[in-house]
Every structure is written in C-alpha cells, then in structure tokens.
C-alpha cells in the first residue's frame, strides 16, 4: 500500500517569518485526513508545498521531507507529482477547462496520452460514479456550485492519482452540499484513494475522516476523529445582544408581491416581507434558493419583474444602486472579486468620495473593524479575514441605514467573526438594520433576532431565530446546518 509521509515540513516566503514549520503527518491509500486551521494558518501553503507548486512556481524557501513510497518528493516538479497526487484548488472553477462536462473529464486523460478506449472507459466510469451522467453534455458554466466541485473532483480523480488534496472544499457549500461531499470522500476512500482535506471547518465531514490535525503554522494531531471539528465551537449560547433594548419603529424594507426572473423561470415567487427597523435578520436556505437574488433587490442591483420593493420608503424601481448606496451598504461574498483599490484607505474612502460624504466616516469605519493600522497597505497583501473586514468598513463608510452582508462568515476565523459581530451590534445600537445571508447556523444564532428561510424562491418562514434554528424538525425540513452543541443552548 502506498503512503504519503510528511516530516517536519516548513515554508518561508522571502523576507517573512515561516508560514509553516514542523508539519508532520501521514496518509495512506484508502484513508481521509482532515487538517483544520483558520485563515492564514498555512493550509494552502501546505498544499502548494506538497504539490511542488512551491518552490517551482511560487518562490519560497521549503525544508523538511515529503515521502511517497520512501522517496523524498519535496521540491519536485508539478508534472512529476501529479502522477501520484493531485490538488483540487480552493477556486476549483479555474480547474474546469472543457466546454462540456464530458470534455472536461477527457481533458486530463488526453494530456496523459492515453488511448481512446482507455479514455472512454475512464470517462464513463467517472460520469457514472460521480453522478454526472445526466450532465454529460452540459456546459460547466450551467452547473450549480456543488456540481462544478464534483466535476473538478471527478476530472482530477480519473487521472489516476493515488492521493487527492482538497483545499477548503466546504467554503461555498450548503449543508446538503457538505453531505454530498462526505459521500464523495467516502467513495474515494472505498476505491483506495487517500484524501487530504484542508479546511477551516470540518463540520459534517467527521464521519469519513480517519484523523484530524490542527494547523496554525505548526501542526499537531487532535485525536482519532473525535476532536473539535469546528474551529469556533459555540461554547456559550447566551446571545451577547440579549440585553440590548430593541426599538422597532416601522419597517426599513418592505416587499410587496415581488416576482423576479433572470431568463425564463421565476427565481423569486410572490415574496411579501417587512423587515423592521433596528433589527438583525439572517436569510438562510439551500444553495440556489434565491437568497442573494432577494437581497440584491434591497439596493436596487436587481429590479422586480413584478411587484415593488421599498427601502426606507423609497421604491427601488425609481433609484439606481448608486443612489441607494446612501441607504443600503452591501458587502458581497468573495472579497477577492470586489476589492479593487490600490490601498486600504482608497478602498474604504471610495463610497465617501462618490457620495460626497466626510472622510471621517471612513476613519471611524476602519477603527471599528480594527484596520486603522493597515490603511496604507495594498489590499492584496491582507489576509482573508482582513479583506472581509475591509469590505464591511468600506460599506459602513457610507453610513448606511441598512447593512446587507452576503455570506460574511465564509472562511473566517473566530477573531474575525467576533469583529464582524461587534460591527453588526454597533449598527443596531445606532438604530440601523442588518441583514445577513448565511449558511452558518451558529453565527446566525449568535447575532440575529429573526431568521428568514428562503426555499425555491419563496419565503417559507420568517420567525424569531430560536424558533427555527433550535428546532430539529425545522433544521431538517429546511436543509440547514445543525447548530453545534445544541444541548447547551437548550439548557
């Protein structure tokens, strides 16, 4: 049986302190190992070192040993390493090349120079075993996020590597997606593949993991799959905001008979909703249910196909997103795609300059998000947690009455989550509303007053947060991630 053995692996980027030091673990074929760590803890660096991307494509100093069948492969070329080990990147969409699903699976096999019979056999095997047969002739861009990820796994697996590394595979998945991923990992184990999963959060994957390691620059084993699999275990379920006096005066957002479609079919169907002022509301539901489409109506990025949306009494049909920016701050998912300025200060003052607001707003926002020391730094040098805080700061700089956060917890460590939570509570103290789109049940429980459940384009529930997220039946019915340590909360 082949095995991968990593000994005292370390990595240091030029002129910086080591990102990784003394990382040691082993992985056999037919096993799955989880490595848990916060953003910036060195997970991607570990993956790149194992794959030879560091030091061959990205310059850095590496030391230690990576044994594959007693041969030290550290520092070998990517092309040599992909023969026995491959990587599914955090941004797996960039690994999809084919114009159809089938073509994408063929791509790697043709590059290996296999004959047509072997290629056809492997393609059919992958389509069947990864549940992609139906999508054989689909264009990858038409697939859901979960299916794209499955395609990336399938097209990498067919290349015949003994080991697969998955870098943060759960970050964009809903609970159902995580369960599907668990099944995929179990299947990979059953066919003799060794799987290494690097993630901030392994919740939902515990069953299929043989060992879990904790990574924070250094690495140590937690225990045989009984360790804390969620970095921010919710130990105290008493909400920090329970003592806050909530005064609800009128509605900040009112939706009347909203229908919306991008092309043929309606994505939002007859939505009626009134979000009170001075409230914190979480919007939850499975992937593709219409959550982001719904909140994009709040700042006029999308206009209703039918019906009306009123924000602070204004019909969004009559206002552009730029005009509504004074009223609604919007923090998008995936900061890498939305941060565009050269420095932190340029980014955070962007809205103030456009809207003619005092730059003091930007200073205050930076201070609130604990970013004032980084104002001259280029955003691309920030950690993921700092980037999310920067996006929130640049939305808050416009001093909006309503703040919309789309998946703010994705890939965040506990410290960043704490700062985001503080900013949210501060908004409410100032009499404003916050709307959070999230899959993270624990975060929603910690911060929200109420929760909106969106399913198939309709609002199926709008209730106090405890009534939904502490109700097992509703959690199952709405396909939500079960909260951690639910017993403690109930007591």
């Amino acid at each position, binding site marked *: 049986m082949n095995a991968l053995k990593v000994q005292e692996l370390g990595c240091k980027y030029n002129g910086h302190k080591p990102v990784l030091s003394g990382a040691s673990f082993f992985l056999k074929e037919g096993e799955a190992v989880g490595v848990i760590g916060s953003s910036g803890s060195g997970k991607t660096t570990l993956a790149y070192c194992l794959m030879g991307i560091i030091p061959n494509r990205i310059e850095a100093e590496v030391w230690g040993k990576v044994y594959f069948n007693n041969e030290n492969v550290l520092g070998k070329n990517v092309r040599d390493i992909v023969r026995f080990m491959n990587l599914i990147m955090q941004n797996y969409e*960039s690994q999809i090349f*084919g114009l*159809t699903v089938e073509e994408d699976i063929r*791509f790697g096999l043709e590059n290996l120079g296999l004959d047509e019979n072997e290629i056809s056999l492997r393609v059919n095997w992958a389509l069947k075993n990864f549940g992609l047969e139906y999508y054989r002739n689909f264009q990858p861009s038409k697939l859901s996020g979960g299916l794209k990820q499955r395609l990336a796994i399938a097209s990498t697996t067919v290349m015949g590597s003994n080991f697969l590394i998955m870098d943060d595979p759960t970050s964009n998945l809903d609970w159902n997606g995580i369960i599907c991923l668990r099944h995929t990992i179990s299947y990979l184990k059953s066919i003799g593949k060794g799987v290494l999963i690097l993630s901030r959060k392994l919740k939902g994957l515990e069953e299929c993991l043989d060992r879990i390691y904790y990574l924070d620059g250094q690495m140590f084993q937690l225990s045989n799959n009984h360790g804390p699999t969620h970095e921010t275990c919710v130990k105290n379920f008493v909400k920090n905001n329970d003592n806050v006096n909530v005064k609800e005066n009128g509605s900040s957002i009112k939706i009347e008979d909203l229908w919306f479609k991008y092309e043929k079919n309606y994505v939002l169907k007859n939505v009626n909703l009134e979000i009170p002022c001075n409230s914190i509301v979480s919007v939850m539901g499975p992937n593709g249910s219409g959550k982001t489409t719904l909140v994009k109506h709040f700042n006029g990025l999308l206009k209703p196909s039918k019906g009306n949306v009123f924000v602070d009494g204004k019909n969004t049909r009559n206002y552009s997103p730029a005009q509504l920016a004074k009223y609604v701050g919007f923090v998008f998912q995936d900061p890498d795609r939305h941060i*565009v300025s050269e420095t932190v200060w340029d980014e955070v003052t962007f809205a103030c300059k456009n809207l003619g607001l005092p730059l003091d707003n930007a200073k205050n926002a930076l201070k609130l998000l604990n970013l004032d020391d980084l104002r001259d730094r280029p955003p691309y040098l920030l950690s993921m947690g700092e980037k999310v805080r920067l996006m929130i700061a640049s939305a808050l700089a416009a001093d909006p009455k309503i703040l919309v956060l789309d998946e703010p917890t994705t890939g965040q460590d506990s410290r960043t989550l704490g700062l985001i939570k503080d900013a949210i509570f501060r908004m409410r103290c100032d009499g404003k509303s916050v709307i959070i789109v999230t899959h993270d049940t624990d975060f929603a429980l910690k911060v929200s007053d109420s929760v909106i459940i969106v399913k198939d384009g309709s609002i199926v529930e709008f209730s106090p947060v405890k009534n939904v997220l502490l109700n097992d039946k509703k959690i199952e019915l709405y396909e939500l991630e079960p909260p951690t340590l639910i017993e403690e909360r109930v007591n």
Partner: protein
Amino acid sequence: MKFDPRTKIIFFTSAFTLAFLFTEIIELIILASITLVLSFFSVERNKIFGRLKIMAPVFLVAFVLWTFLNQYSLFHVYDGVNVMTGVFMTLRLFLIVVLSLAFVSFVTPVELVNALASFRLPYKLVFTLGLSLRHISTVSDEYIAIKEGQTSRGLELDKGFLVRRIKNYNSVVMPLLIRSIENAEKLVLAMELKSFSLNGRRRYSVGKLNSLDYVVIFSMIAVVFIFLLRNFLW
C-alpha cells in the same frame, strides 16, 4: 431534425457571403425571411426578436443616412433622394444582424470548436479558441461582480458626458484587466495540474453528415458560386 455543426457553419458563412453579394432587394428579402423563420424555431427566439427591437433605431438611422446623405461628398453635391438605396442598405444591415443573432443562437461554442477542428484549422488556434470561449463566462462574471461592487458604493457609471463616462468605466475596466491577468496565472497552474502540454493533442469529435446535411451544404455552396459568377464574370 438536428443539423451537423459543420452544416450550420457552412450555412451561416455562405449566408453572410450572400448578404454582400446580393444586389437586388428581393434577394435580401428572401434570405432575411428564411433566417427569420429559422430564428422563430430557436429556443432563444425571444432574445433574438428582443434584440432586433433594440436595434430598430439603428436601422432607422441607416435608412435616413443612405436615403438622404449617401450621395453627398466633400467635392460633389448630387440632387435628389434615393429611397431604394436606403431600403437596400437597411435590409442588408438587418440581414447581417439577424444572421449574427441566429448564428450565436444555433451554434454552441462546443459545436463551433469541433467544426473548426474538423476543417483542419491549426490545433493551437482551435484549442485557444475553445479555451477563450470557455472563459468568456468567467470574464463576464468578473465584470458583473466589479460593476455591482462599485455601483453599490455610489459610483454612477452612466452619468455625465462622454469623458466623464469613460472615467467612470475606468473604475470597472482597470480592475477587470488586473483580475483577468490574475485568472490567467491561475489557469496556467490549473493546466499544469492537468498535465497539459501542446504536444498531447486533444480530440475534437464530430458525427457523420447525413443526406440532409449534404443537401444544405451543397445548395449553399452552389448558390454562393452562382452569385459570385453573376457579380464578377457575367
């Protein structure tokens, strides 16, 4: 009835050529009618007819220009208006637009790449075209994401006169360029993970042509040939 991608490409290439070879209004009307009838059966017919509606002012401007102004030059001034020239040139423009919309609607990127490869175009060209087509949606998503991010923070893109608008769009286009370069780097890495090299040739598959495909291909080539002879020899 499903046509082979090669048939579709030959049909549209011939039709585009004919649009420039036709010299009579009736010829343009016949070809435009055929294309419109075909477009009616497309799954994207609403999109096609919607876009034609948006283009209506352009057709109107073309008609006015060709009718009233085509005979004016810096050196000569001619008398009269030529309505027939206006109608002819507007119909030609209309035909080119309809054909373009129908082409995009009927020929998928996969079909285009497979068909071009079967015409024995250089491998590097076909592969690059396929990769570019695959990444159009990625660039388009990036553009939308940046635009949404900027407008949500008070940037009015379509405000002011030309220079101001160009400056506004600069806030979207520059980050898009940088993002595209970053994505290209990721793409190279991803290709290496898939053991890509230009020596390992990809196979582009096309099916067999049926009798109807042959009828369409030879008819279109024959029609183009006839009109070429008519215009240049007879």
